């Protein structure tokens, strides 16, 4: 497949499939003057695992409950993101040396000086992280959706139009993060909408509104990225070298996430893929190989008829 200019935006076929993309909403056809790209920055270093986000999301979006399931994985009884869980708080318990550092939780009064704190609950650290749909710059779910049900909003987010989805289920295995899922009681696919309805009314998403520590921050993606850079530097200065950003890099395999994270360990520890790639990056190669195989099949059939008399 050749690389061809689209004419209107100057992006090429390949830019549309992978790589950095400054304005996904504009590329998807929203007129100039559309709102800036909005997203989430989830700073897991200040998450207290209260699950207010999970509850607020369910309440606002009318997401069905999944019953009470005790999974035996720390305080996580949600398990994973899915059709009925659009926020999922992961809990990881890790054995570490007793000496830990203050993460600078929001508090009242003057900011405390960073200090090494001796704790006596020797040797367990908690990692808590509220996961969500990444609203990828190059969203595989959207690319493969055959009905056009999944679409890019004017805010650059990725949303399912439930009146169009026919429940083909293609988006489910396409997502490199395992986010979107078919709701079996309903037949259609569901995931986080980044509260599209609230955004259009100028409100912030329900989870961000409910988060008591501001672990979930909502705003224009550019601002969030800057804020996140500063936060990582701050944590590094405070002696938390393991702090790192995940999904903020426009050069990554999905062109950067609209919802990105500050993590305190490797992504896979939280159930996130370490180096996700949008599957459609390789689609030109796939169509090419299909073309070659199709030609081979046709040639084989012709040869079989020409190559003998009986």
């Amino acid at each position: 497949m050749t690389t061809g200019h689209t004419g209107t935006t100057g992006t090429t076929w390949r830019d549309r499939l992978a790589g950095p993309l400054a304005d996904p909403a504009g590329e998807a056809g929203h007129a100039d003057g559309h709102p800036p790209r909005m997203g989430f920055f989830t700073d897991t270093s200040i998450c207290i695992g209260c699950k207010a986000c999970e509850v607020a999301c369910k309440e606002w979006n009318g997401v069905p409950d999944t019953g009470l399931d005790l999974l035996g994985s720390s305080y996580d009884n949600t398990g994973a993101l899915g059709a009925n869980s659009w926020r999922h708080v992961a809990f990881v318990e890790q054995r570490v040396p007793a000496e830990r550092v203050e993460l600078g939780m929001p508090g009242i009064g003057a900011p405390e000086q960073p200090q090494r704190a001796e704790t006596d609950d020797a040797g367990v650290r908690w990692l808590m992280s509220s996961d969500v749909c990444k609203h990828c710059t190059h969203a595989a779910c959207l690319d493969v959706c055959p009905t056009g049900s999944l679409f890019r909003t004017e805010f650059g987010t990725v949303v399912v139009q439930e009146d169009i989805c026919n429940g083909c289920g293609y988006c489910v295995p396409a997502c490199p993060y395992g986010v979107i899922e078919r709701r079996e009681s309903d037949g259609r696919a569901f995931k986080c909408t980044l509260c599209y309805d609230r955004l259009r009314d100028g409100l912030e998403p329900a989870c961000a509104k409910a988060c008591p520590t501001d672990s979930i921050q909502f705003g224009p993606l550019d601002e969030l990225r800057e804020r996140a850079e500063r936060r990582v530097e701050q944590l590094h200065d405070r002696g938390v070298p393991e702090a790192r950003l995940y999904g903020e890099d426009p050069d990554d395999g999905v062109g950067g996430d609209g919802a990105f994270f500050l993590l305190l360990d490797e992504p896979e520890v939280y159930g996130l893929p370490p180096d996700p790639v949008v599957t459609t990056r390789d689609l030109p190669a796939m169509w090419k190989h299909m073309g070659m195989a199709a030609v081979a099949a046709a040639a084989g059939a012709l040869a079989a008829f020409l190559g003998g008399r009986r």
Partner: protein
Amino acid sequence: MSPRREQEMVPRAEFRSYYGRPILKQPAWKVPDVPGYLFLGGLAGSSAMLGALGGATGRPGLARASRLVAAGSAVASVGALIHDLGRPERFLNMLRVLKPTSPLSVGSWILAPFSGLASASAASELTGLLPRLGTAAGAASAGLGPAMCTYTAVLLADTAIPAWHEAHRELPFLFAGGALTSGAGAALIAAPAAEQGPARRIGLIGAGMELAAAYRMERGLGLVGEPYRQGRPGKLLRAGRALTAVGAGLSVLGRRSRAVSAIAGAAYLAAGLCTRFGVFEAGKASAADPKYVVIPQRERLAGAAEPVVIEQSGAALSRP
């Protein structure tokens, strides 16, 4: 590493995960709907080619049988696809847009006209009405035949499922070869003995393509090729290969016997089913275990930094 010795790079099985839970969602597609859909699409595509070419080369019996098979399996393939939808009544939304980034959209735009044309050709064959139009429809469906044989490979490959995605170069050839053997199999059962020659040759060509692609998929993909070798999918794929070989062998050795040819045809068809179910199950297995996501991605991040090299042997590959 010496390219001569058959070696495979297999990283250490150590990796971290969140309570061992899958990172990816398994496909929600139902069995047997979707593997059946894959099989029937290939059978329909190659049968359409056999039908048109048989008609054009003066083999009316082969043409008739293959046209009927093409129409029947195309319609059944559409049925399987609709049955698998969460909202079957919205099937027509598949044709709401044409998206080159969605193999299912492109596939629907191949499948819909194909089944119409193949059905028209079969209807004309059965009723004797409008023979010229029937022939033209059959020829047009044969034109779409090669695409019918292969688009389902892109459908599977264009996902995050490691065993499918990483096989995106081989799957189209596997499916094309399998489609040819399936079409040949149906003709070996249903076409008159005197007109089966091309079907035998198509079967041999398809078997060669299929076996070569299967070999590359199992050996060339490193860790993510593992699900193609192990467990239930491994068994299904081995059975598929054995049946393909049996079909090819019997189709040649038994060419004077109607009964042996029919057995060869049945073996080809069973092979096609086993292979599609095997590939489908292998993909599910690779989505269920986070190691197939984490280890290859870690390796990629490390710039393939010194993966452990293990001699290829059953023992080395079947790690716990």
